[in-house]
């Protein structure tokens, strides 16, 4: 039976990044404290990055919506203005 380290290096050589990460999670309890803190640290850093990316993305989405709605209102106002002018015959359309 292979030891956990040999298994790890085998997966590292043959598997994908995802396989390696899944292996670490699934076999977490088999590792000593020293390695456990690295595993926790790696996934913590990743989770922080993901949370941060999501936060930035949501901010961008909200900014985009606000900007698009501002433009929408400006265009709708302009349309109403042109329609009114047309109705009043001030500035015939086309």
């Amino acid at each position, binding site marked *: 039976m292979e030891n956990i380290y*040999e298994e790890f*290096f085998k997966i590292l050589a043959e598997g994908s*990044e995802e396989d390696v990460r899944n292996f670490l999670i699934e076999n977490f309890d088999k590792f000593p404290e020293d390695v456990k803190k690295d595993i926790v640290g790696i996934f913590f850093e990743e989770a922080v990055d993901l949370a941060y*990316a999501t*936060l930035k993305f949501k901010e961008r*989405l909200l900014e*985009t*919506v606000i900007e698009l709605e501002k433009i929408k209102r400006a265009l709708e106002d302009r349309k109403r203005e*042109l329609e009114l002018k047309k109705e009043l015959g001030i500035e015939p359309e*086309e």
Partner: protein
Amino acid sequence: MVVERFRRAQEQKKGGEYEQSPEAVPPSLAEILKDPKLSELLNLALEKDNKQKLIEKLLKREAFSENELEELNNYRILLKEAIDKSQEVLSLLTPETIKIIVGSSNKFKKLVGTLGIENTKKLLEVYLSRLYIVGKDRFDSLAEKIQQIKEAERQLSNIDEQLKEACRRYGISEPELGRLYERIAKGEVKEDEITNLVKRRLNILQKIWDFLQGGTYSQKRVDELNKITEVQTHLNTIYDNLKEVGEMIANVIYTTNGGIDILNKALWDEFKPLGQGLSFKEAFYSPEELEEEWSEFLQEQKVTNWEQLEEERKNELKSGFKSRMRNKLGNKFGNKFGGVLDALINMVAGWADSK
């Protein structure tokens, strides 16, 4: 004790820097050497700077020169910084912040589920102080991101509410991803489709973003549009854009637990986090390569029969092998210390220990 007496004398001499008392700036070198965690941290800092001579002297408790003591004192200050800064970061991890971070990754959630929050924090404390020593840039970037997540805690639920409201305005209630997850569960589509969909949507969003940044729709330019049909064409584009953004919002806000990793990974790719370390595949090391390294090392150390060596010698060699691999991997991967590289080095050490 000589070390400690010297340290105190030095600190008293410096006066201004340590105005209170030497004990006010713990840990002392003696305390570091007594505490396994701290001495491991010191060892790590010395290994990183390739201070083999100092490591050996510390191991054998040999006398230090004045320069060496000064150097050790600098490391002591570095260790104190590492501990303080790690504590600062940990203090940012309030239950609310942890909830946001844990909720962003199913893998981390699984680990926290196994360990519990308190044990996770204990392991993180060690991890963070090590990261401060070996990869300060990464540590700083991580601390900055956590700070921003913490600051956005209240703002985030507000953003979510505003985004949900926007979804309601556009009549979008069911996200495309949700529909895709259902089809994946039924085996009708593959997971790749979600990644592709998110990437397609991100591309569209990027185009809309660039378009908005271009300032095409300034008030002045809107006022210059003189035909109703022309204005309507522009409005149609904006309606389409809003619908696209609305779909994207729905996918971010209403995502399922199962899909969060896929969605977040796509977002992660898009926002390319700074200061990232290595991936495991980059740090590739095969079992054969490892065996080769080990044989080469034993040869250099003139070891012909490993089995017959005394335990003490074996431990010395294992420790030497770990240092050698740390230097070798460190040189190969430049400044990408911490995280994956440290895990790899510890795996190598564990592998050597199993010899």
